[in-house]
């Protein structure tokens, strides 16, 4: 399982232009950032035991700052190492066992959401100057609703044996937090882009 995942991650790496050591540094450090944000104790929501953590914030931030490819790699590396046994999933969990819990959908969604946000963020940064923050927020919201909540609901349906309505209602508990976290992610991303103008889009010399 984790082998095929790593292969996919690696292949994506190769299909783009080769990453520089700086890219590797950014990917690794953002993966660490996601891991660190997962270790901060979360609040278990409702009876399902899927905790609210800062992970969605840092996953979205990875996309907003690094773009699609590197954002996917950072979130993917986090998930992969969690599968491999490092206690970096929320609540100090780890291993493939997580795929049997109601959290499964959310965890699978992370790399995909980072990639989607990153793709949209790249478009926003290249094309717009005005209302950039608002556009970035839109990018993060679309990705988190479609991908994270979509797969999250699916995960709860499969693993907690809930029907769609129940899973949907259970998922709603996360929505207010996610809106807030996306606002924060955009504020942080804007600050990072200001401090490091070439982190996502390379400027011409």
């Amino acid at each position, binding site marked *: 399982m984790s082998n095929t995942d790593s292969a996919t991650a690696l292949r994506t790496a190769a299909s783009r232009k080769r990453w520089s050591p700086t890219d590797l540094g950014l990917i690794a450090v953002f993966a660490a950032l996601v891991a660190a944000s997962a270790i901060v104790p979360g609040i278990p929501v409702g009876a399902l035991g899927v905790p609210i953590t800062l992970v969605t914030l840092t996953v979205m931030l990875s996309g907003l700052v690094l773009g699609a490819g590197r954002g996917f790699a950072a979130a993917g590396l986090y998930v992969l190492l969690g599968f491999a046994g490092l206690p970096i999933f929320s609540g100090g969990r780890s291993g493939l066992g997580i795929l049997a819990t109601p959290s499964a959908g959310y965890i699978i969604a992370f790399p995909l959401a980072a990639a989607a946000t990153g793709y949209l963020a790249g478009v926003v940064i290249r094309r717009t100057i005005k209302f950039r923050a608002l556009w970035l927020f839109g990018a993060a919201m679309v990705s988190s609703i479609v991908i994270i909540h979509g797969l999250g609901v699916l995960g709860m349906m499969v693993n907690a044996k809930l029907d769609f309505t129940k899973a949907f209602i259970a998922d709603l508990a996360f929505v207010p937090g996610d809106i807030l976290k996306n606002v924060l992610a955009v504020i942080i991303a804007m600050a990072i882009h*200001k401090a490091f*103008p*070439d982190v996502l889009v390379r*400027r*011409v010399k």
Partner: protein
Amino acid sequence: MNSISFSRVSVRVAVDGSDAPKTLLSDISLDLAERRIGVIGANGSGKSTLLRLLNGLVEPSEGSVVVHGDDTVAAVRRVRSNVGFVFTDPLSQLVMPTGREDVELSLRRSIRNSKERAARAEAVLDRFGLLPLADQSIYELSGGERQLLALAAVLAVNPTVLVLDEPSTLLDLRNRELLRRTLAGLDQQVIMSTHDLDLALDMDRVLVVESGRIVFDGGAAEGVARYRALCAAAVDSATEDSAKEDCAAMDKRWLGGVQK
């Protein structure tokens, strides 16, 4: 051939929200053949940029840098295997959790056999007196031990040139002395930027950098004296705080919050 030459090197970077690029270094021509070369100057003067040109971390916007016959842009890989680079903060440089593993990492490219690699790492650690600390977490080491370890990991692959970017800034007095003695015993050509004027006085040649230009090039004692005068003049004439900060930084470098 056996030296480093800069020919008419300028470095400019784009600035966000402005069309005019910022000039970090302008029109530098140098021939570096001495065994011990010090680079001094205020923060933001271009010292770091000058050093980073030596191993291709920064590419010249104009002109070229040639290290022992290799152009730093065209032959960057060979240049990097010849030029060892030690950064101010060893924590950003040490990748592995323990010293032994980090030194072995350095050797991964050159020694494929893991037993040979381990033996060589052992020898390198021993040479720097780091063997007793080899299996400790790098977070448990003192600043001086970390810097020594970073140096050992770089020297493990036997570079011909060693570049150090303010290596003593984060060290206490005792560790500075240790670093100073270690450097004195090396066979490599050493090129080092520093705010530590004692360390600068050990050098065979000193370059003083100011606003992207080399304003002095010559003997250590004279260079240090010149730098002191320059700083005093800057403080006297400065009305803004920024210039004063520049000089306060002679002893204490801005840590940028990056230090643990």
